[in-house]
């Protein structure tokens, strides 16, 4: 039986992080983010919300997670 990696090294919002290879959906929930309130770019491409559950994070992935804040 092959062991999967315990952790993957990714970049989230410009910061390096080592996390379990969760799906984007699970990762967002783990860090307390409501997936409905954000938009996500994975490796510079918009990740549609429908794809959050089915997209597993892997080594070298670059995530940008944004939301709406006050602005003019």
């Amino acid at each position, binding site marked *: 039986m092959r062991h999967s990696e315990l952790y993957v090294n990714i970049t989230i*919002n410009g910061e390096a992080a080592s996390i379990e290879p969760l799906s984007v959906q699970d990762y967002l929930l783990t*860090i307390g983010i409501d997936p409905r309130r*954000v*938009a996500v770019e994975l490796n510079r491409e918009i990740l549609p919300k429908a794809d959050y559950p089915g997209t597993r994070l892997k080594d070298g992935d670059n995530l940008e*997670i*944004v939301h709406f*804040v*006050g602005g*003019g």
Partner: protein
Amino acid sequence: MPGTNDKLVIAGREFDSRLMVGTGKYADFPQMVAAIEASGAQIITVAVRRVNISDRNKESLLDHIDLKKYTLLPNTAGCYTADDAIRTCRLAREAGLSDFVKLEVLGDEKTLFPDNEELLKAAAVLVKEGFTVLPYTSDDPIVCKRLEDIGCAAVMPLGAPIGSGLGIRNPYNIRIILDTVKVPVIVDAGVGTASDAAIAMELGCHGVLMNTGIAGAQDPIAMAEAMNLAVRAGRLAYRAGRIPMKLYASASSPLVGLIK
């Protein structure tokens, strides 16, 4: 205004209010909510920024906005290239499920004037991707015409630099823009007090967008109400048809029947 059929129409969507407001620079969320309420605005701008991963206790803007009541207009504030602005708009659409965007591509940090070359590039791409683009631009009729030709849903010429409070610096250009394009003309940036907003509407503009003018006032909620009234007064005055400006007097009382 209630009772009249003078709605603001942008890309086929109708709005009663011709005042649009931003959500930035408020002291706190309750003040922001109260000011937006007092303004009567139905369209509010928001910015798109990274989530703070490490500080998850921070309240979220959308916790305080009733999305059934307001139309969000995400902006591309802070973008200095077409690529960044396009990327931001795609993210905004994904986050907000609406394709309305306020497109800003800045050219300079001190003036925050638009980089019209990059703006036109971004607008062309975004219109093709089905966005409803409301571009912040300079009070240049030629650029406004180009933006209309590209397919923008409105043009938003500045009155003066963002946050400057200088009012409508070039009302003559604004009038020329009104003559030049058929899409709604919305003055965006520079409004400092109520009369500035009224002037924009008296010129014939279809709407006014502001943030600092309200949020930066000593009493933002009172100023929001003032702006609400000013935009409505200015629009009503415009539709009422003002008297011409004359060099000499024209008496208002009869010349006959004077006692001698």
